[in-house]
């Protein structure tokens, strides 16, 4: 082996063209056994040999190096392509980041050009753990592109991503998940599933968003995971951040669009969040909600007349008045007629309307289709303006919008009439846009505006764009059939076009005239005569066929000319196009029946010619017609009726838009545009006859502030101020925000409370349905208050239907031993002070809840509690193993207090008792990612067994596990909600040094626990 060549030498080989006929499989350099590190590939050994001598030597040499089962020839081929990238490999193997980066850049450039770079896989995958972030990113790009082809090698990179999943930097966590889920290797499905589940409860909304993105990826890789994925989707749907909403709805649409039941509880939240969601998410959510609304609400156009007036007002009135009006209206309407729009339906319409102002055309279109499919007729008009605005945009946008406008304008013509002129055509428009605009103009034509439209059409006919002219002529024909008044004018105009110099124009006119004449032939024999003359000049088959048909059909109006035309056509029969031949036969047959004296021989002649035609259709027709019209002894009874058959009155064709009935597709969808069902299209359901139970959308708030149980806006709304939120829609809202206001767990408790405050005040507004609602509620809470009557004060009407609710403490609170936290200060609470502590006893109602003991003391005069007296109560909260705060509301007669409980991580668990062996066994299972180790120094006072145990148990609710070693302390616990194990080991080395190890499946909990314990020990 010669020493390595300088990289520059390889450069030449790199630029040589690829030997043809190489398939990617063959270029795969070597198979590396699974699990082996790529470093072991004997690349360096091979590299030396390339430039030594003639290829034959190489072949022999390589044949033995490479896989021995391979034939020498194929090995040589593979190595030849391989050697082209030697320089890159060397750069990737170097220690310098800059060289690596350069190499990766060149590789990515190759991928971008569509060149195959898969043979570099082993060299690239080594760099997956590179420190340089740009190299790392490019390696990710490479990995995602080729992992599917080289699954075994790709597995080598997995551990890096698993490590990345618990990085403190959220960007790294997210990108690790992104790449991990983008590697389409079926074998890692379980790992992906685990990672997604973990990320779905990450603290960072960005990571949760990435988790939502990963769901459809995993689903497309392995659809068996559907059930588990739906669980994750359900969890993420309950997320209250705007960042996650769009992505999770996208995942919902791809994985389980049929599970409409998952939306119920989140419906109001989605409506309220909508305006703050990023624009792409908005499109997806709006489309999904359109479908949802179609299954859950009643058609708003059931009894139009009444609604029309109320909506009319709503349309013209300003927002404020609108809501007031609507409220009154709703009440009055309720008495008069059965249909009342579901407040949730109204909520959707109201919250989407501002999005018509979006700069994103897709959002505008989404709202437009929502209004078209869901809004009462009178309100649909608002979308016209926005759609017309989109016509100023890029031509592709115009194309799609015009298609949709064309469909809408058939059903709701009035909506676009004010914007008629916006659809006027400029000579610079692309032809496809012109034709669509023409379609819209034709749809909009009516008695009042037809003269303007026709004048406009006249200019179009002179255009240089012949396709467009042909379409214009068609359009004129349609106007003429639809509007009787102008039929004659149009016909005259078209006849004038017959003398046009352009044959296409003439042909198109003939076709259209034919259709028009069919409506009233008697008056127009002059035109027919004129057209008969045209057969000499016009060559366009369709036009010739039309003329012949016309003459045949109305041969009685032109008795002299018709046989002459047949004579001419018989002469040229053999040279005609098929459609013309068929019409010649038709003409002959009709003439034979009406005027057999003159045309008998001609007909025979034509039929004979047709008999030997190449086209079997024409031969068949000739045979059929001969049997039918020429009486012979064999011909049956039909002969008598031949005349009736051929010369029956035929209905005039209806010229209608090709966009008619397209609206059964959801507007704005790909399927609508193609007028065919696209893959994955979700049918837009019809309105139900009877509305499903609207109460499913009520968010039932339990004491457990689970994520999915929340509907209110928690993000501080940026766009929408909460003013003007009251209104009829609030009736249902307020119902549940009464109790809904009670608890929440969000990042922005402040804005949340603001919202619930306003809504509960508006809750007094009455519509009949709402009152019922309230009553029901009163009953519900009544039960509770009975239960707590004993020690609960009357002012504490927390309308909270907790699972288990508030419980009378059956045991004495151990306030002294455990740390207490303040919930409501005496001053802030106007004399009422509330403290809470974590009692560390299992909550009797539900073992998955953390028991929180609340102590209420009265420092002034409260009716049901003597001054200075205290009462305590235990509440169960399911924190879902997360330290996010539970926000809720404390109500008295006069005031609402917004309070929140944030649990220290140590309180999220309950002690477990196990033997030393069990502990070791469990610990063995929870290594690697799930193990967190930290060194610490113990302060003076903390160097006794007793002190250490006390500090640890005070920081976390854990149980001690017996331990043989002297200076080791072990503790075990299970998280309350999911019951995952948390194992703590503290090793005390000489002096003050100690090492703390926490093993837990929940890495976030583990990390935080380590911090807390260290802090506790340091005190």
């Amino acid at each position: 082996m010669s020493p390595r060549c300088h990289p520059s030498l390889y450069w030449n080989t790199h630029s040589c063209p690829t030997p043809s006929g190489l398939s990617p499989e063959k270029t795969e350099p070597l198979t590396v056994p699974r699990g082996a590190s790529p470093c072991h590939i004997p690349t360096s050994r091979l590299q030396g040999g390339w430039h030594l001598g003639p290829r034959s030597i190489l072949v022999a040499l390589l044949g033995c190096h490479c896989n021995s089962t391979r034939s020498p020839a194929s090995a040589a081929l593979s190595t030849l392509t391989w050697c082209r990238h030697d320089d890159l490999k060397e750069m990737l193997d170097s220690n310098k980041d800059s060289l690596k980066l350069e190499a990766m850049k060149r590789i990515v450039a190759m991928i971008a050009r569509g060149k195959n770079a898969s043979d570099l896989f082993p060299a690239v995958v080594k760099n997956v753990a590179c420190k340089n972030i740009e190299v790392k990113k490019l390696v990710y790009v490479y990995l995602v592109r080729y992992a599917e082809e080289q699954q075994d090698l790709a597995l080598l990179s997995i551990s890096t991503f698993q490590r990345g999943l618990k990085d403190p930097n959220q960007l790294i966590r997210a990108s690790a998940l992104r790449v991990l889920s983008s590697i389409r290797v079926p074998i890692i499905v379980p790992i992906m599933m685990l990672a997604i589940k973990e990320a779905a409860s990450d603290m960072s909304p960005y990571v949760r968003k990435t988790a939502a993105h990963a769901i459809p990826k995993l689903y497309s890789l392995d659809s068996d995971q559907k059930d588990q994925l739906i669980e994750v989707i359900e969890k993420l749907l309950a997320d209250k951040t705007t960042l996650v909403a769009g992505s999770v709805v996208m995942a919902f649409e791809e994985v389980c669009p049929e599970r409409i039941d998952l939306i119920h509880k989140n419906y109001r939240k989605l409506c309220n969040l909508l305006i703050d969601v990023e624009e792409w998410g908005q499109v997806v959510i709006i489309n999904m909600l359109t479908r949802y609304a179609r299954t859950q609400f009643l058609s708003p156009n059931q009894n139009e007349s009444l609604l029309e007036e109320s909506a009319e007002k709503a349309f013209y009135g300003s927002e404020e008045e609108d809501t007031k009006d609507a409220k009154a209206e709703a009440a009055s309407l309720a008495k008069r007629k059965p249909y009342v729009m579901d407040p949730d339906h109204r909520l959707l319409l109201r919250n989407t309307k501002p999005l018509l102002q979006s700069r994103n055309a897709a959002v505008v279109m989404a709202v437009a289709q929502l209004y078209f499919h869901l809004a009462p007729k009178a309100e649909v008009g608002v979308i016209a303006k926005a759609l017309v605005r989109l016509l100023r945009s890029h031509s592709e946008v115009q194309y799609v919008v015009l298609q949709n406008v064309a469909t809408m304008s058939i059903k709701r013509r009035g909506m676009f009439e004010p914007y008629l002129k916006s659809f006027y055509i400029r000579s610079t428009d692309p032809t496809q846009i012109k034709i669509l605009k023409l379609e819209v103009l034709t749809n909009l034509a009516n008695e009042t505006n037809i003269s303007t439209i026709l004048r406009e059409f006249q200019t179009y006919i002179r255009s240089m764009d012949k396709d467009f002219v042909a379409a214009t002529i068609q359009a004129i024909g349609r106007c003429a059939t639809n509007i009787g008044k102008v039929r004659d004018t149009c016909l005259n105009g078209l006849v004038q076009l017959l003398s046009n110099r352009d044959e296409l124009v003439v042909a198109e006119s003939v076709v259209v005239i034919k259709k028009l004449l069919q409506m009233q032939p008697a008056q127009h024999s002059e035109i027919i005569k004129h057209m008969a003359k045209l057969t000499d000049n016009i060559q366009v088959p369709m036009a010739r066929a039309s003329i012949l048909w016309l003459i045949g059909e109305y041969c009685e109006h032109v008795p002299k000319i018709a046989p002459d035309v047949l004579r001419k056509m018989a002469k040229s029969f053999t040279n005609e196009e098929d459609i013309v031949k068929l019409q010649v036969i038709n003409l002959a047959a009709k003439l034979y029946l009406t005027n057999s004296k003159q045309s008998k021989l001609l007909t025979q002649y034509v039929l004979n010619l047709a008999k030997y035609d190449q086209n079997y259709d024409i031969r068949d027709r000739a045979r059929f017609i001969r049997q039918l019209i020429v009486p012979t002894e064999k011909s049956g009874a039909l002969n008598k009726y031949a005349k009736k058959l051929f010369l029956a009155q035929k209905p005039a064709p209806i010229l209608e838009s090709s966009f008619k009935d397209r609206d059964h597709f959801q507007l704005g969808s790909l399927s609508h545009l193609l007028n065919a069902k696209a893959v994955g299209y979700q049918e837009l359901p019809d309105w139900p006859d009877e509305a499903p139970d609207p109460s499913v959308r009520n968010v039932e708030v339990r004491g457990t502030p689970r994520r999915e149980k929340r509907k209110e806006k928690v993000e501080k709304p940026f766009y929408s101020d909460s003013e003007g939120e009251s209104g009829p829609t609030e009736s249902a809202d307020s119902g549940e925000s009464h109790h809904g206001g009670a608890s929440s767990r969000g990042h922005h408790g402040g804005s949340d409370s603001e919202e619930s405050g306003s809504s509960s005040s508006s809750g007094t507004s009455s519509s009949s349905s709402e009152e019922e609602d309230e009553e029901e509620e009163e009953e519900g809470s009544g039960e509770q208050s009975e239960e707590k009557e004993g020690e609960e004060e009357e002012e504490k009407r927390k309308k909270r239907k907790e699972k288990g609710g508030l419980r009378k403490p059956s045991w004495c609170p151990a306030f002294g031993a455990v740390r207490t936290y303040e919930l409501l200060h005496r001053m802030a609470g106007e004399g009422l002070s509330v403290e809470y502590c974590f009692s560390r006893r299992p909550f009797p109602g539900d073992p998955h809840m953390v028991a929180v003991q609340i102590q209420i003391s009265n420092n002034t005069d409260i009716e049901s509690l003597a001054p200075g007296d205290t009462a305590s109560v235990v509440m169960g909260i399911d924190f879902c193993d997360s330290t996010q705060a539970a926000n809720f509301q404390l109500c008295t007669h006069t005031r609402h207090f917004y309070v929140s409980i944030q649990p220290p991580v140590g309180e999220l668990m309950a002690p477990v008792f196990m033997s030393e062996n069990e502990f070791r066994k469990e610990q063995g299972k929870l290594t690697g990612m799930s193990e967190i180790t930290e060194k610490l120094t113990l302060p003076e006072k903390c160097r006794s067994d007793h002190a250490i145990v006390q500090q640890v148990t005070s920081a976390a609710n854990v149980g001690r596990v017996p331990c043989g070693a002297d200076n080791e302390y072990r503790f075990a616990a299970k998280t309350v909600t999911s019951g995952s194990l948390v194992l703590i080991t503290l090793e005390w080395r000489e002096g003050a040094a100690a090492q703390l190890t926490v093993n837990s499946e929940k890495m976030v909990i583990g990390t935080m626990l380590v911090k807390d314990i260290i802090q506790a020990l340091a005190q």
Partner: protein
Amino acid sequence: MIHSLFLINCSGDIFLEKHWKSVVSQSVCDYFFEAQEKAVDVENVPPVISTPHHYLISIYRDKIFFVSVIQTEVPPLFVIEFLHRVADTFQDYFGECSETAIKDNVVIVYELLEEMLDNGFPLATESNILKELIKPPTILRSVVNSITGSSNVGDTLPTGQLSNIPWRRAGVKYTNNEAYFDVIEEIDAIIDKSGSTVFAEIQGVIDSCIKLSGMPDLSLSFMNPRLLDDVSFHPCIRFKRWESERVLSFIPPDGNFRLISYRVSSQNLVAIPVYVKHLISFKENSSSGRFDVTIGPKQNMGKTVEGVVMTVHMPKAVLNMNLTATQGSYTFDPVTKVLTWDVGKITPQKLPNLKGIVNLQSGAPKPEENPSLNIQFKIQQLAISGLKVNRLDMYGEKYKPFKGVKYITKAGKFQVRT
């Protein structure tokens, strides 16, 4: 959603491909080429093409086709809008969205595409966020990077991603704090043969260049906001404030962006600032015709009309044109049959005129239609609708910014039929 993206130049070379799911072969583009051939004209290529296994949704920008491959139902506008956003981002990063710029920066392009879509669903499209993740290339930076070894890629999550105002970067600092607004109005009009207006409307935009430190909260008010009939907003604008007070209240993105675009209510009569006198005729049976066009100012509120350019697509039968211009210069391209007359400024004293003979193909029939004239012009310091900015207030920051407003009126799609 979006499966793959192919960038194709005018000569039909696929010069970039990117896949977000499994790889789709380049051969899928053959369907596109087929459609392109059928359409003859680039602008007539249908934006949505259905193939047996995929759907192709394409846009045409700056002589590049962006062809995306779709496999399942998706709103077509969603894809089209996104592709335009991609083109805008390239423009923003490289100054132009051309084939050479993309090829030169192929790695950055790839990194951008990687960030913009995840599994085919848009992830980060705000330019401010992207710029924090991937820094745009500058000469200075590439020099610095080669010395210090630092990279163009950010390693922390852009703050905007998590906040409610994703369009703004955190920690913006300027020594000169400036806010500029350009009110640009375009007149779309169709003028018929006799000089009467068939259709006219005013479309306007306010483009802003905001370089303010910190988190300024701006509110912009107009003297006559009722003029604005239909408005579309940048996401930063608070809709409720506009609805109730007709004030634009917003925390701006950093740098250049379009604040609003609007249409002026159609009830207002549009003042057309120029008129055109034209006489174009082709003689029957002789291979020549006459061409005589004069442009003059009208109702321009004392401002000069400048930058006047007239383009005419002459009929196919025209071979050549022999014209004399009293002002400016003209060119006629015998291949595309486009006549361009660059007039410049119009002075009312001496109206610019273009006059001469049109040579037709001998033997060809006389063209039936007279070509329509497309006019471009510009008027500085004037918003033709009369829209006026009243004041700009800033809250949330202590310093005093420099504020500026500029008005321009332009011709949009301004066409004179003859």
